[in-house]
């Protein structure tokens, strides 16, 4: 890998981190298409680099949320059992898939994310699940459908392990629309959870030699810089501009991954 490639990886990661921060996605979603597209990196390597960036995002973001007491730690610890199982399965599955199939799945998940974010997750009140009551999971709001939530957590883990993303794109809508968790708490809880979920994938990816440290460094530092720029840039961007940026970024990512799937 040339120095130009390493610097370019850092620059695209800054953009990915900034976009992820502005959209509340964490950055992982845009890292793989950017690394595998403009930089021509193999998809499997880009996924492995992305998953370590997800851990970094979770530790930094989760720390801030925890200090303010926003995440529902107990709910997160329950759902982590599902996401970690899913992440192991997803990572192993990803290793067996061809780059074309993996790119195709990525494109489909990006399309789902686009629709999911444009539609938004409407908060709703649900009947408390007896298991949630027994565990003391919620107080100012009731938490419902714990078992179904666990099943969806496994799915979120599979998506995370397979594609090197955080899994929040699956988890947050499920927590909000199905389990009755307020959006702000669901986002913080998801950020808190995706670190340990990413570790389950990274432990496999690193030991199998898929994580190139010299590539991981600029990606992680770029995501950090981009994510820290987000709160400063956000006030200067109107919701309409953000929507346009999002549509351009996700549109290009979908085209990139779809091309790889068809080529």
């Amino acid at each position, binding site marked *: *890998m040339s120095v130009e490639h390493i610097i370019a990886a850092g620059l695209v990661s800054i953009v990915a981190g900034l976009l992820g921060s502005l959209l509340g996605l964490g950055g992982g979603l845009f890292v793989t298409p950017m690394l595998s597209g403009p930089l021509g990196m193999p998809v499997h390597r880009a996924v492995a680099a992305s998953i370590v960036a997800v851990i970094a995002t979770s*530790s*930094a973001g989760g720390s801030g949320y925890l200090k303010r*007491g926003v995440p529902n730690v107990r709910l997160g610890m*329950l759902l982590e059992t599902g996401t970690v199982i899913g992440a*192991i399965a997803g990572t192993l599955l990803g290793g067996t898939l061809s780059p074309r199939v993996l790119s195709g799945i990525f494109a489909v998940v990006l399309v789902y994310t686009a629709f999911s974010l444009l539609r938004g997750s409407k908060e709703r009140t649900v009947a408390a699940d007896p298991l949630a009551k027994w565990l003391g999971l919620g107080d100012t709001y009731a938490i419902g459908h714990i078992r179904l939530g666990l099943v969806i957590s496994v799915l979120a883990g599979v998506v995370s392990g397979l594609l090197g993303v955080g899994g929040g794109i699956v988890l947050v809508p499920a927590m909000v629309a199905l389990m009755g968790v307020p959006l702000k*708490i669901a986002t913080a809880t998801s950020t808190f959870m995706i670190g*340990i979920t990413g570790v389950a994938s990274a432990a496999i990816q*690193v030991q199998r030699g898929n994580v190139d440290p*010299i590539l991981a460094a600029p990606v992680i530092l770029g995501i950090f810089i981009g994510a820290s720029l987000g709160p400063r840039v956000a006030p200067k961007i109107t919701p309409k501009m953000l929507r346009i940026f999002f549509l351009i970024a996700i549109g290009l990512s979908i085209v990139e991954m779809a091309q790889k799937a068809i080529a």
Partner: protein
Amino acid sequence: MATNPDIGNPNGNTLVAAKVNPSPVLGKVLGYGARVSVALFVVGFVLSLIQGEHGGKGLNAGALRHSLEHGTGTGVVGLALAVLIATPVVREAVALVLFARAKERPFVVLAAIVLALVGLSVLIGSR
């Protein structure tokens, strides 16, 4: 140990149902881990550029030890990676201890399951 946990309260009000508030301690663990790993990433990355290392391959435990012994940037970045990956694991272990002290057994069991699963993933990766 802090009491009156905030288990997901948007207004930060104290709640009565639970026994221990793990959030401040877990937040510190994640914060320190993130800062140490980022600092190591910066040092290792700059060092690797100065030394003209271009990567292109993965780094296992043996290669990491060798790189560190020779003071290479790749070794420092590998160490940063190890700290980064260990941080959520330490956070989970600390949560287990906090819940064990508070005798909140369901969450001790959940944390133990997650740690066992992470151990399983390490085993799977090594084969």
